[in-house]
């Protein structure tokens, strides 16, 4: 029973830890907090595991991780949750923050396409960032995303549309030499 609950929990959850961590990492902006949040989420998940019925363990795990992340964000990064204007977020950007050195390696890194994409995703608010991560990086369907964020599919559609517009704007901005946020 208890041992077998643990065993069942581990086998249900293990396949989705990578996705859980990736989502938490994108939402918290750093490794250390992502780990802590995943751990806390899994403790919650274990507590509620008896109530978990259903085939879709991934959505169930991601939902708990996502909710734990937002609780964490409300305490630690309240502006990341509510802010929708990219300009308000510049002080939260992990890439912008960490890029204070101007060594050639960092400068080269900044120029890469992948870096720009990551920076653009990181720049939008958490509400929109999570749907992009779930859709484009984790490959969830609209229905699965709706389940994870506990919102109607119409909301998923609107948020994805909005998220993509903002990412596109951020990318355009990064490529505009007159307005390079990362260079100091």
């Amino acid at each position, binding site marked *: 029973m208890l041992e077998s609950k643990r065993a069942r929990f581990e086998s249900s959850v293990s396949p989705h830890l990578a996705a859980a961590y990736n989502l938490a990492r994108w939402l918290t902006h750093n490794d250390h907090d992502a780990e802590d949040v995943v751990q806390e989420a899994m403790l919650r998940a274990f*507590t509620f595991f*008896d109530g978990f019925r259903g085939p879709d363990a991934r959505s169930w795990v991601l939902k708990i991780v996502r909710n734990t992340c937002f609780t964490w964000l409300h305490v630690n990064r309240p502006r990341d949750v509510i802010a929708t204007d990219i300009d308000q977020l510049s002080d939260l950007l992990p890439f912008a923050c960490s890029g204070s050195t101007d060594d050639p390696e960092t400068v080269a890194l900044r120029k890469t396409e992948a870096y720009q994409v990551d920076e653009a995703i990181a720049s939008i608010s958490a509400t929109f960032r999570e749907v992009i991560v779930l859709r484009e990086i984790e490959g969830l369907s609209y229905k699965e995303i709706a389940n994870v964020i506990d919102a109607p599919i119409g909301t998923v559609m609107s948020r994805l549309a909005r998220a993509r517009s903002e990412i596109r704007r951020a990318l355009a901005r990064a490529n505009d030499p007159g307005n390079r946020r990362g260079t100091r």
Partner: protein
Amino acid sequence: MTPENARRLLNAYVDGELDAASMMELEAQIRESPALQQEFESLSVLQNLVQSRGRRFDAPSHLASRVFAALPEAQPVGTSKAVPGWWRPLAIGTSMAAVALLLWSIVPTLDRLGPGAGPREEVLAAHVRSLMADHLTDLTSAERHTVKPWLSSRLDFAPPVEDLASEGFALVGGRLDYLDGRPVAALVYRYRQHIINVFVWPSSKNQEVSVQTWALRGYNILRFDSRGMSFWAVSDLNPEDLQKLANLLQRAAK
């Protein structure tokens, strides 16, 4: 179609989430509108870029062991250790309410629960304890001819011990326990991954009592009296399979 709605539909379109009818309608509109066409292409490029370049952060290799090591140790379901801090005031309130309810309901109505409903809690506690304390069996043997004499020589009765492995209920062993104010036999069976404790002791009234079942804190409990013995089975196994075990034990006892 409003621009806002067109944008939503285009996104669903590049995500392959539009139904056939909306898709055909949208494709017709894209053909007619250069602006929509351009927006569609730009969205496709962006999607491709984000999917191919967006980073998937690798979880550190120690994450799984860290997460699973932090899970609460084996403990009875319903204790508060696994409850997050913000739940605790509520949990205390709930347990106080539960105690009040228990005092209010159990004490005056014990008889109403039916014959022998009393030791349910005791039976469940004994089951949980047996799994917690790494003391599932005193004698580990799948051989009923070993388990039965071992128990009989230590008790003042001879508990029926059945080999039900062919039905999926493997005998793990036997244990002595103390329930309902007397030493009892605990027979441990395993069904798939589930451990089942079957407690057996002589019934106080020598009469047949048909199967009664309860669900208590996530466990299923079942009792019946047959051939002068009370049988109590408890497990996290589902009620149907537990009932199956009861049927087999009843049949064997006859």
